[in-house]
């Protein structure tokens, strides 16, 4: 039954939250409807195509987000999405996003970081972040395949000297040798793509301790 459009205020702050091409449409509830059981419906539009398409899994939902990753997986295209609030036979006008361009706007997640030590040096092995995929069986696409200029900013903190230094690398293995003995070193890594600024997500901090001068045993904190 079609609802009366405009009877409700629109959802607000509707945007895409995109990380590694996992594209979630999110919005805030309409203002002034606290305590009202509002539901939402979502549509999306592929720029240059002909019409708005329903997202069936996000019809009459009560949550304020909708995963449109599958519908927006061609990252070289641009998209719009919109949501409206429904309550009984009343509904709001559509609240619409700006034009969303996944290739330029997705946040690049951190690489996986494997940190090992032989007691005197640290070796850091990075695994590139992966593009979102619909189901686990699909083969993974590394973001390095999409962004050939993807780089990593590795920062190392010497907890004894309280000094931090960084290194920008494109290769995924690096070794810092001749470290100070009996010292805890902590490592953070960020992926970045030269070009329009994107929100950065550093990796989890990982620390490893070099050994005292005598024995050679591994201690990873």
């Amino acid at each position, binding site marked *: 039954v079609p609802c009366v459009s405009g009877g409700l205020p629109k959802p607000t702050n509707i945007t895409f939250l995109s990380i590694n091409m996992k594209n979630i449409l999110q919005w805030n509830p309409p203002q002034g409807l606290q305590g009202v059981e509002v539901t939402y419906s979502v549509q999306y*539009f592929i*720029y*240059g*195509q*002909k*019409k708005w398409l329903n997202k069936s899994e996000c019809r009459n939902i009560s949550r304020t987000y909708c995963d449109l990753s599958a519908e927006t997986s061609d990252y*070289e*295209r*641009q998209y*719009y999405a919109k949501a409206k609030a429904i309550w009984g036979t009343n509904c709001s006008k559509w609240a619409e996003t*700006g*034009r969303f*361009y996944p*290739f*330029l706007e997705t946040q690049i997640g951190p690489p996986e970081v494997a940190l090992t030590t032989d007691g005197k040096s640290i070796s850091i092995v990075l695994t590139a972040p992966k593009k979102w995929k619909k189901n686990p069986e699909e083969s993974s696409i590394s973001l390095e395949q999409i962004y*050939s*200029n993807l780089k990593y900013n590795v920062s190392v903190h010497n907890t004894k000297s309280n000094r931090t230094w960084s290194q920008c690398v494109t290769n995924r293995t690096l070794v810092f040798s001749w470290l100070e003995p009996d010292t805890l070193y902590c490592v953070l890594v960020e992926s970045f793509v030269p*070009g*329009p600024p994107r929100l950065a997500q550093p990796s989890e901090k990982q620390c490893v301790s070099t050994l005292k001068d005598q024995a050679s045993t591994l201690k990873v904190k």
Partner: protein
Amino acid sequence: LRRCLISMDMRRMEESFRGIKNAIQAKDTFQNVTILSTSETLHSIKPLDVCCVTKNLLAFYVDRVFKDHQELSPQILRKTSSIANSFLYMQKTLQRCQEQRLCHCRQEAINATRIIHDTYDQLEVRSAAIKSLGELDILLAWIEKNHQGTSAA
């Protein structure tokens, strides 16, 4: 085969575009029409045709789009002027590629360019200019992807 690498201030152009993206794209009400983003145009250009298509697209924007736009607001005018003058500079560096015969135009490149002009011509001129300006992010991303390298030919 040596490639034509043009040097450019991509960071500045992207920054200028970000300054006008929302305002310009909001004025583009024909969401069902795209000038650059069709499968026959930018997405299907082969490496061999990159130089010619770049040359043709820079000319398209310099000779048509920026002129047809007729912007009055200083804030937007500063940004489009920045991009227009950057395109002018890129045209000059591309000129050297042509002199070194690195910018041959095959039929595929000519066809792709014609589709862009034809789509532009089907819209009212101001709407076409606004749509083309709103698609500068597509062009800049394509140029950056296909012209990665610092030295000019």
